[in-house]
């Protein structure tokens, strides 16, 4: 069974997402909505990390040998300069999509295994992730024209 592998991937994605939301919040303090909402959204991902623990125990987390693809190439550190906020939100959005896909994949497996608890957890987590994505997308849409056309 490879489900443990995927739980590890989900666990890792959410850990990275928690960290990234906090970094962006900290780095873009001058944008009050970004600071406050990213702090809040970090707590949602953090909650997922904690709640995954029981499933990790059940399916014994296997550490995948895959390189840390997304975080490594996309988001090492928040950026500075004119387009920084837009690019940071862009990367957060990609990372959150990775998390959402993990919930979809795990939910499929949970149904196959008749693991109602995991299935329910995946549904809840996915709802949260979707709300994170919706916030990021709204904010990206707002920032895009101003950043690309009018910023210095």
């Amino acid at each position, binding site marked *: 069974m490879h489900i443990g592998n995927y739980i590890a991937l989900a666990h890792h994605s959410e850990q990275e997402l928690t960290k990234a939301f906090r970094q962006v919040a900290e780095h873009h303090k*001058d944008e*009050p909505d970004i600071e406050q909402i990213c702090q809040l959204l970090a707590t949602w991902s953090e909650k997922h990390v904690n709640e995954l623990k029981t499933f990790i125990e059940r399916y014994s987390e296997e550490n995948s040998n895959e390189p840390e693809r997304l975080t490594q190439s996309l988001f090492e550190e928040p950026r500075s300069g004119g387009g920084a906020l837009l690019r940071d939100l862009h990367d957060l959005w990609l990372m959150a999509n990775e998390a959402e896909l993990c919930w979809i994949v795990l939910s499929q497996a949970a149904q196959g295994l008749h693991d109602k608890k995991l299935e329910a957890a995946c549904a809840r987590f996915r709802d949260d992730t979707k709300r994170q994505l919706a916030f990021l997308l709204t904010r990206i849409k707002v920032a895009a024209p101003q*950043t690309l056309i009018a910023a210095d």
Partner: protein
Amino acid sequence: MEQTRDSIKDIWGERTPYEGHWPVRVDELTEEAPDRWVQSACVLCSNGCGMDIGVKDGRIVGVRGRAVDAVNHGRLGPKGLQGWMANNSPDRLTRPLIRRNGKLEEASWDEAMDLIVRRSNDIISKKTSLGIGFYTSGQLFLEEYYTLAVLGKAGLGTPHMDGNTRLCTDTAAAALKVSFGSDGQPGSYTDLDTTEAILHVGHNIASQQTVLWTRILDRLAGENPPKLVVIDPRETFTAMKATVHLVPRVGTNVPIMNGLLNLIIQAGHINPDYIDAHTVGFEELKQLVSQWSPERVEAISGVPATKLREAARILGTAKTLVSTILQGVYQSMQATAAAVQVNNLHLIRGLIGHTGSGIYQMNGQPTAQNTRECGADGDLPGFRNWGNPEHIEQLARLWNVDSNIIPHWSPPTHAMQIWRYAEKGSINLLWISGTNPAVSLPQLERVRSILQQENLFVVVQDAFMTETAQYADVVLPAAIWGEKTGTFTNVDRTVHISHKAVDPPGEAKPDFEIFLDYARRMDFRDKDGAPLIKWKTPEECFEAWKECTRGRPCDYTGMSYAKLSEGSGIQWPCNEQYPDGKPHLYEDGVFNTSIDYCETYGHDLVTGAAATKEEYKAKDPKGKAFLKGADYEPPHEEPDEEFPLWLTTGRLVYHFHTRTKTGRSRQLNEAAPDAFVQVSDEDAARYGLKTGDLVEVASRRGKVVEPVLVGDIEPGLVFIPFHYGYWDDPGRKRAANELTLTEWDAVSKQPHYKYAAVRIRKI
């Protein structure tokens, strides 16, 4: 001076007790006997009392209430009776000013407007109209907002237009949209004449809308007085009359409202048939509020469980209920979520759309409703939905322009974001009309530094040399109420006409004419090459506006200047079906939520994320109202060792906004000449303070020095009125907004003025 009563000492006047029909009492104040009276209405709060302006020898000499007006039945409050004196103030602006070598110097209109046009074109050539922003008011007339909206949205095509209404009323609009699908107050003031119960949440109505409060006082003095529930952290004039006064900790409106709804649902005081037939989301709401037992509410809000139960009993059993909500909710944590809970209370009890029951998501400023309707804030004209392509097409057809020019690719930019873009240098021209952000925005040190930025060209259009105008590159002298004709709409949807009574001083011009002049000089054209803006007079503009509202909730098509001048106020919608206007919306329980009609596809109440049309389609309520809730989020800044006290800000009965007008009426000014900081008896003892001592109040963002006023406030909380700035007293830092936070509600984007952590020190 002749006056029917001294409204400074006797704010609300003599009682005329009643139930059913509110008796007439005409309030009047004149300096000399007028030659003639000119029909108008008051523009010093959102109540919109009908009044006549007394004129003698081309000068305003007084006012009197209009006995026939349904809003006030002749009454006027202290601001209405005395605020007009500002029109005659000797320090009115009478010539345009241009900054040359760092100093503002007199110039001609041609010079001033040419300079603005040159700057505009220069910016547009470099970065499109995204480099231009407008920050307007809640005090202009409908015709002015609509002209501004059309030139901004179809001429320039900038999404950066908002009003200071963002600071006072955008949560009202947001909460109405969340529940009912569009803006628009469901009830009528006449509901107060018969209602069994009244709920005021964060609304010091006694100081804010003194005449509306007079109506309530008269009910309280009559047969079958209504029960009054007040939720407010301060012992206000309003709270003193309450049957039950709940005193919440700062930022805990959501727990209290959740707790009240929970008790009402538990007790079975709901209307299941109404819920079934006319709402969606009840089970989720019930589940959410079920976690809020009175004990848990008490632990978080400090409101005793027994008091909460008492309030829930009144709100759950009254057969009719009028609720009003204002800044204590709108300018605090979870503003929209808390305001929506009041809508929910009415929906689950079925108390909406009939005589005696109404909800007032109150407006702060007099003409804020029009800023919203006309699209001079972050909305589209006629309550249209920026996410709905068909609504954009309607506007494009109406204005005969290509729909691409109308900015609708994302939500219109809210005020705080406009200022942020200016700070970051991506907006380079900011046009401020009829408002005073250098006193009214949060964190004033920051606002002043933005206004002084080299890369920002600031245009200020005002009647006086305000704190903001002092930083302008161009100052345009504006005519005000009494000096121009136009219409405006109060909080119960009553539209009044205000006729020109006197000429403006010097070369001052109505905002309407200034905007038209700009549109002409910018040569905005429609698709066929004709001038974009086709009207020349306010009346022609009103006729164009009527077409814009046809078929929308705020339908004006049945009104005209003649009809408005014959009577004394007409409520929208007014059309063929309702030629005399309509007192209640949603009588049939059909709300404005269907997918083709709604003003918004909704938001996440916690994050503010906008829902898409596809998402809305999946749950299209087809005319049912939404019951939505949210769980509690603590405030973002809380008292700590360094800053151990809560600060809250608010208004005084004698002043409006930043005192630009009321500070220039001798009586109003003398009644409340200066700011102060109110502290509790306990805190006064702790810090060794007595009334009159001077203290320094500091937050993480700034400092002020204020005289102390002891009493009538909870320990741990201090209060500073927000009206006071520097034009008449530059000597000491005293504006409350030196201390406030730059942050805002996720949905309505209204800033949080109601809390900040501060410390005080005797000096």
